């Protein structure tokens, strides 16, 4: 079974804090993704990576950055958290040339 694990289910952070969301996959997948999921807006792509140290902006990269130093780990960084970044964050991975994406359980981030 493919496993995509996000380090936290729930996080509460203060406005202005630097926040790290971690995601690890155990199936040697080339591609990893970060989405945010909001009611009425669906899933929106923040960033994705198709190789170590490679990254591409998605539809809503503002206020976020990412890091992929190792193939199995993809981190999402909120440089200075704001209340409008309160959301559910989903990490996903997929094998190159296999288009099915496997999702983590999600991290619900609340910024106060």
């Amino acid at each position, binding site marked *: 079974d493919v496993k995509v694990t996000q380090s936290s289910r729930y996080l509460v952070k203060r406005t202005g804090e630097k926040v790290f969301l971690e995601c690890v996959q155990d199936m040697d997948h080339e*591609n990893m*993704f970060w*989405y945010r999921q909001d009611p*009425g*807006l*669906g*899933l*929106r*792509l923040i960033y*994705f990576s*198709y190789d170590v140290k490679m990254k*591409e902006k*998605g539809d809503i990269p503002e206020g976020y950055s990412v890091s992929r130093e190792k193939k199995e780990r993809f981190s999402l960084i909120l440089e200075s958290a704001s209340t409008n970044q309160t959301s559910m964050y*989903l990490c*996903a991975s*997929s094998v*190159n040339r296999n*288009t*099915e*994406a*496997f*999702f*983590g*359980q*999600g991290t619900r981030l609340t910024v106060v």
Partner: protein
Amino acid sequence: AQRVTQPEKLLSVFKGAPVELKCNYSYSGSPELFWYVQYSRQRLQLLLRHISRESIKGFTADLNKGETSFHLKKPFAQEEDSAMYYCALKGANQAGTALIFGKGTTLSVSS
């Protein structure tokens, strides 16, 4: 622009009734389309994709390029089908692997 439209936020049906969740897309070229499902308190998971042409849990979806649609259908809804359903499109970016999702439709099946 690449876009996925799910016109219904909520679809409520009775058990045993037919279900059709609508999905329309905008894409230049040959699309790859998917349906993902998220049951309560579970992670998002693939339900089916058009290239497989398979039926999963009684659901089917046919790609209609003329109408740019990929509607999800089931002849007889079950209560366990209640979930959030997302239609997704494989986008043409540099790596060609990022999925573009619609806003989702909540399916509620009651007895």
